[in-house]
């Protein structure tokens, strides 16, 4: 029954031991911790990453109900410094970086000239740099793009190899993260960051995440990551803290309707179709991709990314056809079983203006589904407490 290889987000690794395919994959600084925790390791974006530890659903619920820890050290961190840094970041990203004061963080994107996504990313304004946090799978491509478009007085410093990233997510993330940081993290606003000490070493801590829950992301030196992880596990003991893998990260982000690069957005899609015009500031001045995106918006998108709930428990997945009136009109980009809502959910592109009932071709079975507003899950602490 395990003859068929699972999808790209679920390649098999061994329990702790490393299969043939994964021998060349890089390890994060927390690899030993994952092995000790008996993680199911998979190769993802060139890294050996934990897919799950004690079950995707259990890890998902832990994050929704209390607090979970994610190793996301595979993400890339690229610092832009120099007098020309702001102008350069403004030119290569879609959002308005000039709106950031020191400590500010924003969700943004990099696009090609034709408006297609190179990547989605976070832009941090730190005291001496703009830090771009990019997807692991796109890191090399992004870095090359950034380097080849560098203009003016800018220094590009790829800190990915020396930076670990641990996400502490869930309604009880605050008291747990607070125990390891020198600053009072309660003072850090949503989508804000602080440069502080974590266990005595310099770190950046931001109130950001990918789960819809309150939480913090801790950027620290790779050499310090194991002790930060251990200290967080200890600090969270009373809250039932536990690790959470890529599997839960995916179900949590999809319940929030957050786009995943490579699934929901890629070089063939622009912010117009992906509903990401809110991070695309056409009025800020020129930036790479601006004219194409403006033109696309002017004539109206052909397709639009929507969310849907499907009937029954068959799960629509990436690549399944979306059917309207008996005709395949689009494709599912992400789909899963939602542990919070206990039903099948997904996102996909349909012709702009499509509403209401659709069907999904789940391996030959037409499963009725309904287009619904995003996010699917509305009770996360990020929404309900702010």
């Amino acid at each position, binding site marked *: *029954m395990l003859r068929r290889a699972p999808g790209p987000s679920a390649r098999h690794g061994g329990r702790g031991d490393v299969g043939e395919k994964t021998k060349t994959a890089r390890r994060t600084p927390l690899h030993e911790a994952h092995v000790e925790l008996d993680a199911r390791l998979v190769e993802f974006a060139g890294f050996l990453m934990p897919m799950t530890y004690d079950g995707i659903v259990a890890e998902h619920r832990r994050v929704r109900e209390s607090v979970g820890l994610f190793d996301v050290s595979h993400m890339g961190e690229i610092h832009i410094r120099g007098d020309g840094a702001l102008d350069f970041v403004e030119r290569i990203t879609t959002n308005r970086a000039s709106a950031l004061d020191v400590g500010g963080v924003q969700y943004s994107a990099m696009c090609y000239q034709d408006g297609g996504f190179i990547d989605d990313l976070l832009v941090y304004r730190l005291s001496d740099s703009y830090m771009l946090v990019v997807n692991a799978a796109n890191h090399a491509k992004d870095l090359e793009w950034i380097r080849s478009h560098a203009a003016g007085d800018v220094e590009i410093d790829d800190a990915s190899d020396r930076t670990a990233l641990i996400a502490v997510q869930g309604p009880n993330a605050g008291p747990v993260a607070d125990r390891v940081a020198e600053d009072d993290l309660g003072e850090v606003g949503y989508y804000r960051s602080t440069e502080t000490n974590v266990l005595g070493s310099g770190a950046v801590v931001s109130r950001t995440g990918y789960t819809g829950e309150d939480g913090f992301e801790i950027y620290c030196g790779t050499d310090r990551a194991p002790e930060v992880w251990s200290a967080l596990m200890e600090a969270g003991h009373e809250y039932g803290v536990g690790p959470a893998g890529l599997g839960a990260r995916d179900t949590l982000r999809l319940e929030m309707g957050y786009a995943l690069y490579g699934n929901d957005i890629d070089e063939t899609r622009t912010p117009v179709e992906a509903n990401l015009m809110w991070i695309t500031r056409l009025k800020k001045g020129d930036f790479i991709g601006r004219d194409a995106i403006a033109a696309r918006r002017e004539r109206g998108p052909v397709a639009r990314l929507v969310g849907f709930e499907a009937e029954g428990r068959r799960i629509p997945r990436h690549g399944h056809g979306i059917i309207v009136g008996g005709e395949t009109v689009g494709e599912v980009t992400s789909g899963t079983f939602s542990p919070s809502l206990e039903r099948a959910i997904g996102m996909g592109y349909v012709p702009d203006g499509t509403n209401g009932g659709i069907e999904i071709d789940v391996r030959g079975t037409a499963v009725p589904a309904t287009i619904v507003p995003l996010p699917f899950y509305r009770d996360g602490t990020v929404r309900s407490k702010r």
Partner: protein
Amino acid sequence: MAKLLFTKSHEWVRVEDDVATIGVSDYAQSELGDIVFVELPDTGKSVSSGDVLTSIESVKSVSELYTPVSGEIIEVNTALDDDPGKINEDPTGDGWVLRIKLSDPSELDGLMGPEDYEAHTKG
């Protein structure tokens, strides 16, 4: 109770008289993770060795259950409709999937015993 036989593709089979009960091995349920849906076939259907019996959906992926034996499906575990997680909890007990009345018992000769299967999962 008759002993379990296993396939290379991680099904288990327990034969009593000429009826084979088939399910998902403990190793396979652990690899699949949280199982959320089992598409149960109709009883009365004839199947041949190697056919797909069902699809089993877990949160992270979908896999197919193959039959290692030929015969007629005489019973399906309808309890899995409401609680497919039984496969995770008790894969070789309450999490059984279906029963087939054997048409060619000699097909069982090609299956592995528990020791060989354990070696297979570690190989």
